[in-house]
């Protein structure tokens, strides 16, 4: 892995008609990286991916790949592969012909073509399905055909649109392993788009969280999971108790509240339910709801500063609905947020 960016988006602005979808986006990606574009629908992640593929004209800014400016290079000359969310297999062609499609356009013929297609199919474990039509395959198999179809083209970058979203839980795990294996074996640079944080965390080397056409945070899965820098990212990765900080105090609907420990300097603090101390502490709340989740138990507390979610190990004694509890939001455990919006 080299440190110089292999694919870089520079001041990229994308629009549908007059509606700007992505504004002034900068994103360098190293060769061989596996990057996730994570965000809710409408955040611009798919738009960005389509622009990298060349399916969407760039309004301003640049896309550079492997040292060349490809901003105006048409999609069919970019050497960028894309595995569509729907797989987009050609329904009238067999699995074999689907995989051979791009190679034939490159002018490949005869045994060279055949060998390449066969090895592509073998690598995704579908060599015995060569003569089937896409409609005769399961969703997971179709996706592997789509993967093989893109990979035989030896793209410089492989894009994947919500690669795991259409699969059931078991296949999801299988596909995740498959993608990691392919990436490891070929060293291809992969970018995938997802709205599912678990998918991004499990698969990516680096996660780019997007919101409203802008990058909210870039970091390793650990960074994103443990150290969100904004309330948006914190919320997105499961910090359910988030408060702004003013003058070193927590700002709530019932005024500024002192926290235990040294006064924080961040713009906000975020706690996962598990980070809330239950049964002791300076604050009091009433149990409004409770749910049992196997090895843990979750409580929803009514407090003077709004609802708080807390989670404790199931081995702890249970609290009944309506019971009054003391709790604490320990500042030292919280994730400090530099931006609150």
């Amino acid at each position, binding site marked *: 892995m080299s440190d110089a960016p292999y694919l870089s988006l520079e001041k990229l602005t994308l629009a*549908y*008609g007059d509606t700007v979808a992505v504004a002034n986006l900068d994103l360098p990606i190293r060769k061989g990286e596996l990057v996730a574009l994570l965000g809710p629908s409408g955040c611009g992640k798919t738009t960005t991916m389509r622009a990298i593929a060349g399916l*969407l004209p760039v309004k301003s800014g640049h896309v550079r790949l492997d040292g060349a400016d490809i901003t105006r290079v048409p999609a069919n000359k970019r050497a960028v592969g894309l595995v569509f969310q729907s797989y987009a297999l050609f329904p009238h062609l067999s699995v074999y012909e689907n995989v051979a499609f791009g190679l034939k356009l490159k002018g490949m013929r005869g045994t060279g073509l055949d060998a390449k297609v066969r090895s592509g199919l073998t690598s995704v474990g579908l060599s015995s399905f060569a003569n089937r039509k896409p409609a005769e395959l399961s969703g997971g198999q179709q996706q592997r055909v789509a993967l093989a179809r893109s990979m035989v083209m030896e793209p410089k970058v492989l894009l994947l649109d919500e690669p795991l979203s259409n699969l059931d839980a078991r296949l999801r795990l299988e596909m995740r392993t498959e993608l990691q294996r392919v990436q490891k074996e070929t060293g291809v640079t992969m970018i995938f788009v997802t709205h599912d944080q678990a998918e991004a965390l499990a698969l990516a080397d680096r996660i780019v969280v997007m919101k409203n056409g802008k990058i909210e945070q870039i970091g390793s899965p650990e960074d994103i999971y443990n150290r969100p820098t904004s309330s948006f990212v914190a919320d997105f990765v499961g910090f359910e108790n988030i408060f702004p900080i003013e003058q070193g105090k927590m700002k709530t609907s019932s005024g500024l509240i002192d926290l235990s420990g040294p006064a924080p300097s961040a713009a906000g603090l975020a706690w996962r339910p598990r980070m809330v101390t239950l049964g002791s502490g300076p604050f009091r709340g009433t149990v409004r709801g409770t749910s049992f989740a196997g090895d843990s138990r979750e409580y929803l507390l009514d407090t003077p500063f709004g609802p708080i979610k807390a989670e404790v190990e199931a081995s702890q004694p249970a609290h009944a609905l309506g019971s009054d509890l003391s709790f604490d939001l320990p500042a030292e455990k919280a994730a400090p947020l530099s931006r609150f919006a």
Partner: protein
Amino acid sequence: MFQNRAEALALALPAAFFAAAVFLMPVAILLSDGFRNPVGGWTISAYTDFFADPLNRTVFLRTLRLGAIVTVVSAVLGYAAAFAIVNLEPGTKGKMTGLVVLPLMISPVARTYAWIVILGRTGIVNQALQLVGLTDAPLRILFSETAVFVGLLQLFLPLMIISLISALENMPKDAVPAARVLGANWFQVFWKVILPLTKEGLVIGGTLVFTGSLTAYITPAILGGSKVLMLETLLYQQVSVSNNFVSASVIAFILIVMSFAANILLKRVATARNKQRVPQ
């Protein structure tokens, strides 16, 4: 959705231009003839003249009346036939639908001519009536509104049945049993459940049948003749016999307005329903 406007226009414009040049423009000029004042300017006097003539009024009302009757009768028969067909086994259903569609593939000329043989004084209808003793002397059916009605009904009933079949098939399967369980009799089931749920199909079929009846030429010409003129046959007569293009333009305009009125009705009901669907 592709964004390239120039490409989109290059693809769509030839067809639009063709339809505009070959079709819209000539028709528009033709229609404007009816509003042109011979001494210059515009006038609706051709229309007042047209409706001042009792023959024209008769023909206009007859066209409207026959169109409406054909539409209503085809709706009644259409519901019965469509209901019977959708409740058949899948295989039989396909075959029956095929039989309904079959007449549409046959030249209307042939279909209309068959009625001359059937409805004539020596035709099978009269033979049957005399055999059962319903009438002593053969009835005269040809060259009457009845003959035109029968011909039009046979021509357009398939369109109604097909529209209603697809409407009935799109109806939630449990609606009728649910209504029955709630105590509705068959009349109530039809009126309160089936009719509202298949309204869209009824309107589509109704518009097709009504518009078709307005604009059919051969059937009124052959089965009605000059005794049962309809707007379309009157138009032909105005042009080919009287050389009266202004009158032809007036009739054309009336026909188009009637078709559009039916069509707008269809679109209104259809879009009112479409709004309930979740957009993709």
